[in-house]
């Protein structure tokens, strides 16, 4: 598992993907931070993070698109699946590499609250809760991307479907509100990673949300394992 994790993390930086992801994420977040916090002199970072969900849609597909498709193209999946490693460990290793890169961008973004500290007193704890919420929401969406990457052969298709899926989840709350059926709204809300994230922006760090995000990832990792196993059996 660690071998796969290390290799994948490394390969983000032997291709432009890692640099593009970090570069654009930090650029966009910097602009948002200046605009939503510094320029408007607001110390609450929830607007900042709400805007930053844009990178979920635009950049997370970039992180996950090649995780499995590249292996299929180069036939290195043959190496992984005939090595004495379980499929679950392969999937988790790859998933973690994307999560860690995403987390790394967030760690760099931790500068922002400290920049604000230079100008006055702020309460850091709710802000850290926001960071945690944003991280968990991102990790959940990455698990969807990992799953999609395992089900297709081409990077482009993986990226496009992941983009559409995350975008769909983002606007699902709005679509559901059009239908006036509480059941549909309830079902969609349950699935909506973004809806859960807004709880964090309200400054609430609830255990149930954390568990929700973790189980969301676990479900999609499990589905990924199943889809790989299924391919071997068909």
């Amino acid at each position: 598992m660690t071998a796969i994790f290390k290799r994948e993390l490394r390969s983000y930086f032997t291709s432009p993907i890692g640099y593009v992801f970090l570069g654009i994420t930090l650029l966009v977040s910097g602009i948002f931070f200046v605009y939503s916090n510094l320029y408007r002199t607001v110390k609450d970072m929830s607007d900042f993070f709400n805007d930053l969900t844009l990178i979920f849609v635009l950049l997370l597909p970039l992180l996950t698109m090649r995780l499995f498709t590249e292996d299929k193209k180069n036939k290195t999946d043959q190496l992984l699946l005939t090595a004495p490693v379980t499929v679950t460990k392969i999937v988790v290793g790859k998933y973690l590499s994307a999560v860690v890169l995403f987390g790394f961008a967030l760690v760099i973004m931790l500068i922002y609250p400290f920049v604000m500290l230079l100008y006055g007193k702020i309460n850091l704890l709710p802000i850290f809760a926001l960071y945690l919420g944003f991280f968990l929401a991102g990790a959940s969406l990455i698990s969807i991307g990992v799953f999609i990457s395992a089900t297709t052969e081409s990077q482009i298709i993986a990226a496009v479907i992941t983009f559409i899926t995350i975008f769909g989840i983002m606007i699902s709350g709005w679509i559901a509100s059009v239908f006036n059926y509480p059941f549909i709204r309830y079902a969609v809300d349950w699935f909506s990673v973004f809806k859960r994230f807004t709880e964090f922006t309200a400054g609430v760090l609830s255990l149930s949300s954390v568990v929700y995000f973790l189980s969301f990832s676990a479900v999609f990792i499990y589905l990924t394992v199943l889809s790989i196993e299924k391919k071997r059996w068909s």
Partner: protein
Amino acid sequence: MITVSNLTKKYGAKKAVDNVSFTVKKGEILGFLGPNGAGKTTCMNIITGYISSTSGTVTVDGLDVLKNPEEVKRKIGYLPENPPLYMDMTVSEYLRFIYELKKIKLDYNTHVKEIMETVKITDVKNRLIKNLSKGYKQRVGLAQALMGNPEILILDEPTVGLDPKQINEIRGVIKDLGKERTIILSSHILPEVSAICERVVIINGGVIVASDTPENLSKGLAGKSGLTLQAEGEAEVAQGIIKDIDGVLSVSFKDIGEGVFEYYIETDGETDIRKDLFYAFSKNNMPILMLTPRGVTLEEVFLKLTASEKASKDEHSKQQSEVKNNDSDI
């Protein structure tokens, strides 16, 4: 060591491998021979646990591949048809990755050094894999299979795409490795199999059509053997001379010009008639220009075994296409 029993793999309605059974003994080099698309790769993929079989079992040292995948996979080094290489890594980085992936307990430095020397890639260890030539890529793939000193090596067409010199080198390496390991090697190149392997399994259309040593296979199907002879002089006279020799079954000839004829002599395969031929021809003042024995090569065996299958298949597909044509008429 490896027991494959009643292995069947279906892709939809098509059977890629159909009820294949064979065993490989410890220390044996088994050649897996067949035309392209015969099911060699499918078999190997099932043995290594890459894909599963529709039915049938594979056991390695008594362990089922599906029930104890990790233990079995640890015993096997697999070089697939396309070596599974990460193009963005250097050779040493790649081998380091394999070392960690396979959780090898041996000392890293000595083990990798030894393997790189065996397959002769020490001089390219710091180069990116994507910049290596096909021959070197193949060797890195072989190095990958050797990591962890597995008892069993499964090599899928290890010499495809290499130049003759590299082919010779890789064959030498495989032969050396076979001294202490069990090897299954697939190929559609016959001289390769007869040069390296102790036993050959010929597979065609997903079915095993023969399984024996290369020598026995050639012998068993040979039955009769023959000679080709060129000599000057009247063809009818020569034919008479040849027919008078004991052990000759039949003879035919063809005019190759300038008073020289070529004779195709079929013998019973037991008596050596070469000396008799020489004396008989010299007695009649007919100089022999060329005399070569014609043994049945593994190639002929292979063609014989796979051709009959193919003929019946062709007929089958012909019928099918006729059916289709009828359909389209409606």
